[in-house]
């Protein structure tokens, strides 16, 4: 099958590549770009582990073709840490609040939480729960994920977060 040239930005870097039109974005990221931080779970658009940020939207990368991302600006978990290598506030929050156990859902959770906090820097608990409704976690029971996002919101807002993890 003929391949088409695409050009997009991934974690700030310009990338040019050849893709088959039917290649899903998640397969392109993992298998052609070797960015395996974006996971594949259900493959049926339900679990959210494949969530990346695309042009300022949280998108399930198993439900969009790489060719549709031609010209787009994509952020994956590999692009979340600060330029000096220190953890992003969300990564820090997940670490401090035990927002993960097996860690499988974490890249998707963090990318989704990233966009949520950009749109709503100080969400209520209910807004966080609604905001991550498209991301499933089979380990944590969500309590500590909510706290991790609250921790990050506080840090990004220059406030201290005083709650303890469950």
């Amino acid at each position, binding site marked *: 099958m003929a391949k*088409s040239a695409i050009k997009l930005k991934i974690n700030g870097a310009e990338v040019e590549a050849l893709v088959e039109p*039917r290649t899903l974005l998640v397969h392109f990221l993992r298998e052609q770009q070797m960015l395996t931080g974006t996971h594949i779970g259900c*493959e*049926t658009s339900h679990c959210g582990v494949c969530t990346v940020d695309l042009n300022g939207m949280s998108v*399930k990368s198993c439900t*969009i073709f790489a060719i549709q991302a031609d010209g787009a600006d994509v952020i994956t978990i590999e692009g979340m840490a600060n330029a000096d290598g220190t953890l992003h506030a969300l990564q820090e929050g997940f670490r401090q609040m035990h927002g993960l156990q097996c860690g499988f859902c974490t890249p998707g959770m963090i990318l*989704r939480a990233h966009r949520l906090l950009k749109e709503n820097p100080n969400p209520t608990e209910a807004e966080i729960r609604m905001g991550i*409704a498209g991301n499933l976690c089979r380990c944590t029971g969500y309590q500590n994920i909510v706290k991790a996002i609250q921790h990050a919101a506080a840090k990004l807002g220059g406030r201290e977060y005083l709650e303890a993890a469950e």
Partner: protein
Amino acid sequence: MIPASFDYHRPKSTPEALAILGQYGDDARVVAGGHSLIPMMKLRMAQPSHLVDLRSIPELKGIRIDGTTIVIGAMTTQAELLGSAQLTAAVPILHEAALQIADPQVRYMGTLGGNVANGDPGNDMPAVMQCLDASYRVTGKTGSRSIKARAFYKSAYVTALNSGEIVTAIEIPVPPGKHGYSYDKLKRKIGDYATAAAAVMMTVSGGKVQTCAIALTNLGPTPIYCAQASAAIVGSGLDTAAITAAAGAAGALMAPSPDGRGTVQFRTSVGGVMIGRALQRAYQRATA
């Protein structure tokens, strides 16, 4: 899950899209948000050889209030509907319904045009559009026409759309400033299609219902506009007898299929409950 191979097209204007559709006929399929079509392609239940992506056509985007009509471009996403304060103020039922569709990720991508054109009885917007008496602006090789939502759905996945036509916009008559509305949906979990759902629009004066429209989601192969049930409510003060009469008239139109969401009997019964709740909430809002 890897879809079958296809050629990808990304036209920059509606005429260009129509030309591609004309060239490839039934081998071509348009893709909007892709959140119904791509899952079908992954399951190989859809295998178009040409995919025509509408995402780069600027004229298919945007929300505009044009005197007595609200015009929403087909490629407007559910997230954009939710983000429009002007739209929410004029037609709050759209906001209420859009929030009950899937999850944030799906709403960033899924479009209003895709939701209404898809023809899946599980989609929520078709019943809302029937309730609002909306029309779909449709364009094909031979020109443009307007089809009422109430006349658009023929059976599951079969609509009044002809091959080579695309929905370009959804046109909604601006509801009266003071009206009641409700979209009540029972679902098993976030991201699930309705076990049953009911949309209601209503105006009330002096405690009596002046106008009423009721439409249902996922209670048959198409969305169901319930003219008789709506008429049973008009003139009443929304007493129990009127609600029972409406639910009875609507119940006669329901034909859900038994699936993981329940038996025919259960889903029909939930349909009646959703109608009752939606009527009551709409009445409260109209009289608040």
